[in-house]
């Protein structure tokens, strides 16, 4: 009698823990799948960024942009898989697993956007592009889910957005230096103004922003300095056409530039 009672209470505890085991393992497995997706997203986004840097040296910018867009479509599909995993979950519970991938995507997609539109892609626009329609509406898990089952969304957090934009500034700086190297006299000034706006924006946020952002502020300031230096040098150089040595600047100039284009 005593023993049976023991047995019953024992199995109550044990069976409760079996439930916990399953719950924890499921959670952990999901986390792991999300980490893997995040790594894939990071790599593909980085490659997109490299591809986009080619725009300063190729004749056909549009071609590169389209190719990049295709790559980003692939990335968005992966983000769709994350959204699938997070269906019905509290996304903050698994946020650490995929935050770095999402940041890299923000960096890539906003770089793409800047090259095409010369403006800063907003968080709302990013999120608007992360809506996924699923074909497999066959599986209806819960009764209430029916009408929303075929549309999934993913929401980039404002912190991830800011961190991605902070990294974007590094790529903008690289692009600026490359443009100067390619004899482009306008892009550097455009980039300088844009970068200064972003810098001032971050300075305005100050320590209200997330901690990780303030860590990146120093690099951002350095990038801005490099871009401002480049513009300064363009202006100083442009100021100087010494009269006693003046040649036909424009003709020789265009010759050089044509040659540049051939090489690219």
């Amino acid at each position, binding site marked *: 009698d005593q023993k049976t009672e023991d047995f019953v209470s024992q199995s109550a505890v044990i069976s409760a823990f079996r439930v916990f085991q399953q719950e*924890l393992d499921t959670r952990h497995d999901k986390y792991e799948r999300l980490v893997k997706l995040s790594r894939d997203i990071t790599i593909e986004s980085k490659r997109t960024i490299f591809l986009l840097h080619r725009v300063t040296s190729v004749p056909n910018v549009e071609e590169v942009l389209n190719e990049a867009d295709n790559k980003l479509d692939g990335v968005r599909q992966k983000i769709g898989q994350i959204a699938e995993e997070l269906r019905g979950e509290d996304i903050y519970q698994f946020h650490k697993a995929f935050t770095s991938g999402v940041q890299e995507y923000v960096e890539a997609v906003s770089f793409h956007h800047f090259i095409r539109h010369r*403006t800063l892609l907003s968080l709302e626009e990013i999120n608007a592009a992360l809506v996924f329609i699923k074909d497999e509406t066959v599986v209806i898990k819960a009764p209430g889910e029916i009408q929303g089952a075929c549309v999934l969304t993913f929401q980039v957090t404002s912190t991830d957005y800011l961190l991605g934009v902070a990294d974007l500034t590094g790529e903008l700086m690289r692009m600026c230096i490359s443009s100067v190297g390619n004899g482009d006299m306008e892009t550097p000034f455009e980039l300088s103004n*844009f970068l200064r706006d972003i810098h001032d*924006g971050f300075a305005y*946020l100050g320590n209200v922003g997330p901690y990780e952002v303030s860590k990146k502020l120093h690099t951002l300031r350095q990038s801005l300095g490099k871009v401002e230096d480049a513009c300064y040098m363009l202006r100083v150089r442009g100021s100087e056409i010494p009269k006693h040595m003046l040649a036909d600047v424009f003709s020789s100039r265009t010759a050089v530039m044509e040659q540049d284009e051939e090489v690219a």
Partner: protein
Amino acid sequence: MSVTEMFSHIQGFLSADQEVREDIRKVVQGLEQTAREILTVLQSVHQPTGFKDIPNKCLKARELFSTVQIHIGELRTKFPVEQYYRFHEHWRFVLQRLAFLASFVVYLETESLVTREEVAKILGTEVNREKGFHLDVEDYLAGVLIMASELSRLAVNSVTAGDYGRPLRISNFINELDSGFRLLNLKNDPLRKRYDGLKYDVKKIEEVVYDLSIRGLAKEPEAGGDK
């Protein structure tokens, strides 16, 4: 939208977020205060005189838990329900303490392991994540492990107080708990570290039982008969 406008926009987000956190922090302070009060009530069971009216102490603690429920009720109004894990760090610590206190009260009352559902009821949280402010399974487990360590202390002090039956009952209970935990695959995280501590609690209690048994003080009839 200009860059400046966008940053103002985001600044809005961030300020709102900070306010939410400030609000949460205040409620959590209240919760911590109440938790300390419950702890003070329950700590007295370790004293020789404390063994006599455990039921009374449990009643007192139960009363204080109704204050906890009020705080929790307030807490859940401070942020959107689906963002629980966004702010988790703010209340994780106190919730683990409260889960411990709830499971300790239940143990003192019934000498059995509180279920997650019961803890949720005592604290006034939901059980299921989907339903709202809930108790995370890892926080529940952490609370249970804190209780285990409290029980090893109780085993020691019950001997001092002359209660020789209790250690054996605690030993059985804690062994069952240990078997449960052995089923889990923990990561290298705080919970794992706490679980490593359980082994020492089990060991300590085993030593008390040994001390009693070599002196013929471990009276079998009392062991488990009172549930």
